[in-house]
């Protein structure tokens, strides 16, 4: 029983980690006022590039860097189009999602990829703890980056000058603009950061957990990440809780049949999305979103 529990919990954490990386990025982007739906493209591109990079260099850890670069490039395109050229952010996001899905599928059929996986890091002593050990202290090494990343992101957004300007850009861009904050630059930077982190999330999924790339590997996880930010009411800890809930739902889908519980498989696959919809339904009214979320900024009279 305790083994089963540990297995399900450990798998929940494993499935949460890629979401958590990307959600840190999406959280930054949304606080600056962008609903960044190309986070799906960033994760998928990161996943592919990580495996490609690992195949080229022979090192899964370099793959992670490649994954972050892919996210950065996609973030750059998104940022330039939507926060320099003022193209509707959903239009850019949709086009990028289609582009990256097509591009990764195309390249998957055209280049040789070999499987690579980063090393596991079992924290000595702690990983021997019953239950907690396998759940928290026996993961692939990049997972532990989250321990530093989450406080860093919180500090960056809530405590730094940069974060203050970022949030101002998301709450009231007009006022931010007249106080001398370059709203569009802050928004571009937030999307770039989102790209790096979402790329890392995708890369972790590919070279961290799976060790290979399959077509459309992220399969909508980016959208789950957006749902997690909404679920968390645009707070970082709420967002991380959302990731954990959706990660656990995903883990249940994989674990329940093995445990002999027979639930409808379609229902289980749809569960994260249903949960996200339900969460938004109950929380949308009580949670306040950044006031200028999704609104493009154009200087002048509005």
């Amino acid at each position, binding site marked *: 029983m305790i083994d089963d529990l540990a297995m399900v919990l450990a798998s929940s954490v494993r499935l949460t980690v890629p979401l958590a990386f990307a959600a840190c990025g999406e959280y930054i982007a949304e606080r600056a006022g962008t609903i960044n739906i190309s986070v799906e493209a960033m994760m998928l591109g990161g996943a592919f590039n990580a495996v490609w990079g690992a195949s080229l260099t022979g090192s899964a850890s370099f793959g992670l860097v490649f994954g972050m670069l892919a996210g950065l490039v996609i973030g750059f395109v998104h940022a330039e189009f939507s926060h320099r*050229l003022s193209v509707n952010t959903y239009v850019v996001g*949709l086009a990028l999602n289609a582009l990256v899905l097509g591009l990764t599928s*195309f390249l998957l059929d055209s280049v040789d990829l070999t499987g690579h996986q980063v090393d596991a890091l079992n924290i000595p002593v702690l990983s021997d703890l019953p239950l907690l050990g396998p759940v928290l202290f026996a993961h692939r090494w990049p997972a532990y980056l989250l321990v530093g990343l989450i406080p860093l992101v919180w500090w960056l957004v809530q405590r730094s000058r940069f974060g203050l300007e970022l949030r101002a850009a998301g709450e009231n861009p007009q006022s931010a603009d007249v106080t001398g904050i370059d709203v569009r630059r802050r928004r571009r930077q937030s999307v770039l950061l989102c790209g790096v982190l979402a790329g890392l999330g995708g890369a972790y999924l590919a070279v961290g957990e799976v060790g290979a790339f399959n077509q459309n590997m992220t399969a909508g996880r980016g959208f789950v990440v957006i749902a997690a930010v*909404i679920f968390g009411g645009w707070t970082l800890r709420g967002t991380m809780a959302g990731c954990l809930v959706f990660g656990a739902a995903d883990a249940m889908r994989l674990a329940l049949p093995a445990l002999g519980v027979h639930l409808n498989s379609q229902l289980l696959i749809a569960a994260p999305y*249903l949960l996200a919809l339900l969460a938004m*339904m109950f929380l*949308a009214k009580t949670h306040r979103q950044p006031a200028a979320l999704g609104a493009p900024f154009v200087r002048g009279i509005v």
Partner: protein
Amino acid sequence: MTPTLISEPAPALAVPPADPRRRPRVADLGTPLLYAASLSTALVLAGLLIALVGLSPWDAARAMYDGSLADGAAIGQSIDQAAPLLLVAIGSVIAARAGIFNIGQEGQLLVGASVGAAIALFTPGPGALVLILALLGAAVGGALWAAIAAVLFYWRGVAVVISTLLLIFVANQAVSYAVNSPSLLREKAVAGQVTTSQTDMLAESVWLPRIGEYPDFNIGAGIFIALALAAGTSVVLVRSRLGFRIRMLGLNPKAAHRAGVGAVLIGGGALLASGAFAGLAGGVMLTGSGHRMQDGFADNVGFDGLLVALVARDKPMLAVPVALFFGALRAGGGFLSATGVPRYIVAVVTALLVLATVFPAAYAEVRRRRTAGA
């Protein structure tokens, strides 16, 4: 409260909310040269991509041409592919004009097609009547799926973009469940045959009629439905009171509210209409080409149709040539396998073209703003 109404600041009426997709006027579209440069950059990038993986872009272009334009059969294929794209695009245009961004057409299409399949399979009656019922049912199914997002938005304030997006994944699984359940849509067992997860083939009497001579040149009736609806939508949007209200709501919700345009009725209605069009597209795909539901039925038509609307800048009549072009790309993509170029290049080209078409107007707008010294 009349005094406050009068003292309402005028700029809110004078300047529409900054929606960059609607901003550019014909005068500052920039030179056609910019468009040409932008589009050719997209095509060159796609060509380079093919060349980079060691294949021939010329062979690919040749195959695409053979599959889409070379002879009557190919042209018919392109037109058949364009019909559902156009239907989805018209729906997207209606919602976008009302200021609502529905991006869940893929799911609405799938649900619509399943409802259509249920009606076509289980309704007794003369073929033509069942066909019409199936198409209407498909539209209603798509509209109801969009209605979930509408209810979530107007009742609970859930963003339409996110809810329609997530509902795609729910629709995928719901339809997969229906197609896998013997009590619902899964094909009926014939003694000694293993059933797979697909529906029975529709009876031939409920297929959409095809016009023309096989195999030289023939097209399904779907494109005529789509063209008629595109023309109708264009007239309604531009000429009718309803269309005026829809556009008003999209351009300035506050002014629309003051003028007595019900956001729930008109906006929600537009969202439902866009779902209905997507559902109808599913119905046309079902009765026109697939004739049964199975895995991968939607085949990205919902997303591609949405991209058609984006490229057509939310103009229903402009969506017609764009849909035909995208249809030709899809039809041509089917011929790529012989050249060894993965057919996913079509998705790449499509997406690049979308970026290439939004770039020039946006660029011209930025330049205009810079020279205006704002």
